[in-house]
């Protein structure tokens, strides 16, 4: 492979990887933007979505429908799990401070992971192929069309979310809630309701992310959520957590860094370099690339 082709191929792979991270990061950013809480369990929602895909794709194929229709089942299951987690675990500790919330989220993540381990076993499951799209040759590199699809879906969802949060009445309520809960309540916003809806949207995104992940890496394991979730979270922080376009940018940057380091620098070290970038960004600009600086008041 010529050096241009290698470069283009890496770019394509990096953008695809980044688009997956971006989809996951959108879910993190939505939740963090509204209730200022790192939802550690978000990565595990993707694991739940992937296992749903694993079990529903054969059903879809048997019923004569296209395999990607299974995403509907994944979205529904993820949404239900997300809302249940919010209502059962997160709502009771909401007033108790950020540390309690963080530990609860961690506990929920451990719970989902270990429950999946018991329900589905420790062996990885391979998901049947989802899209049978052809690939195109450009500059000697192979461009799979489902990569384009992943990136496209990511951008569409980002724009839709941005418009929704900026313009729709519900979106405005979502932005009002973190600014001042009591004032929002006085304005007739049901805060609990808004938070549950936010979780529903975030978890539904996890369902879509699971589809795109499984179309690239057709394998699901019970611990796939935690590490991928961590990287997606890094993407969200990098772009500026709480900012929807930031999640997209952060995701793409993390994906590109990973692939380029893997190809050009040192294959074994790509994770270390991603994490180092995160630490440097947090030290230099803690609010991320697109985040707003909020100074703490006494």
């Amino acid at each position, binding site marked *: 492979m010529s050096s241009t082709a290698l470069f283009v191929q890496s770019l394509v792979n990096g953008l695809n990887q980044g688009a997956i991270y971006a989809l996951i990061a959108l879910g993190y950013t939505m939740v963090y933007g509204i209730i200022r809480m790192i939802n550690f369990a978000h990565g595990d929602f993707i694991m739940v979505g992937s296992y749903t895909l694993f079990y529903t794709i054969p059903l879809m194929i048997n019923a004569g429908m296209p395999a990607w229709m299974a995403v509907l089942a994944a979205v529904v299951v993820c949404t239900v799990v997300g809302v249940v987690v919010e209502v059962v675990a997160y709502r009771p500790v909401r007033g108790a401070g950020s*540390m*309690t919330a963080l530990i*609860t989220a961690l*506990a929920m993540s451990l*719970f989902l992971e270990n429950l999946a381990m018991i329900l589905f076993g420790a062996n990885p499951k391979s998901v049947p192929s989802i899209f049978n799209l052809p690939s195109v040759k450009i500059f000697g590199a192979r461009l799979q069309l489902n990569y384009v699809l992943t990136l496209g879906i990511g951008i569409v969802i980002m724009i839709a979310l941005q418009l929704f949060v900026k313009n729709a009445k519900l979106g405005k309520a979502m932005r009002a809630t973190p600014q001042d809960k009591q004032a929002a309540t006085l304005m007739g916003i049901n805060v609990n309701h808004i938070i549950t809806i936010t979780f529903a949207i975030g978890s539904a995104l996890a369902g879509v992310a699971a589809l795109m992940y499984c179309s690239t890496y057709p394998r699901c394991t019970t611990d796939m959520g935690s590490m991928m979730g961590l990287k997606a979270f890094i993407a969200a922080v990098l772009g500026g957590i709480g900012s929807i376009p930031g999640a997209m940018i952060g995701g793409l940057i993390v994906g590109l860094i990973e692939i380029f380091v893997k190809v050009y620098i*040192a294959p*074994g070290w790509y994770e*270390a370099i991603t994490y180092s970038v995160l*630490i440097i960004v947090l030290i230099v600009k803690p609010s991320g690339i697109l985040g707003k600086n909020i100074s703490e008041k006494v």
Partner: protein
Amino acid sequence: MGKFKDKRWAYLINFIAVCVLFISLTAVFNSGSLGTRSTYIKGIATTACYTIIVVASLNLLTGFMGEFSLGHAGFMSVGAYSSAIVTNALIGKGIPNLLLFIIALLVGGLAAAVTGVIVGAPTLRLRGDYLAIVTIAFAEIVRVTFCNLQITGGGRTMSGITKLSDFSSCFWVMVICVTCMYMYVRSRFGRTIVAIREDYIAAAASGINVTFYKVLTFTISAFFAGIGGAMYAHYMTAMIPTNFNFNYSAELLTEVIIGGTGSLTGSVIGAAFLSSLPELMRQFADYRMLVYSVVLLFVMIFKPSGIFGTYEFSLTGVVSKLFRKIKLGRASQ
């Protein structure tokens, strides 16, 4: 009455109690009443010893300073690997085992402490969630580094480390470490970090150098985690960097939280109980983390400060209470 609250008395009583505990444990192990399981249970007790050190050191950060570390396993692995490398270099040079063990512990602790300064100094101005993320990132960087270096086994198991940790030495190291941490918490430094936890702006306004004390505590915590790691290395004699992954850090944090944030008693009892529980109930091993997470959820919902809260068990307090009761009993006769 007051004489039992006297410091010298307190040291004596606590020292006697620790000796009694040690003698009774060794007596049980040596009496043969446990039969063939004796060495196995001794092993569990050794595991409990290093877990107690690491969990208590994490509690210094989480409970007393009010900041999280989700990467404490990273410090542990720094301690474990550096001490293992040093013992491998020194073995066969005629150094007695006990001295070698102490050297290994100090090397592990110091290596982890240096890492603690390097990580803590720039990052400790971050707080809460962000700091938690940075510590995860740090632990992952450590893991990837050890996976790639030849000297640490290059991603494969590093085996053949001399077995230096036995129950009695681990027990005494644990006692010394926990005593040091307890004294730190009760000292002027300890009160300072509690003040920082309660309100860091007010603490800074009162003339406390917040960053200095934070980095200091972070370093001390890392030091003890490194000692725990060194004990781990010389007890297991083989290890792989993925042992110290995010899940292990999460498990350590779980033990701190369930025991009680801000209570070293909670950490000691929590760690001893939770690290021996899965060994004692092997057939439920698959359900261990599931049960942990459910317990953690319930603790968070119903008693967010953990089972012991900030309560510290005080033997001298119990003794003086006992004497008061006896005296009252005599007086009423």
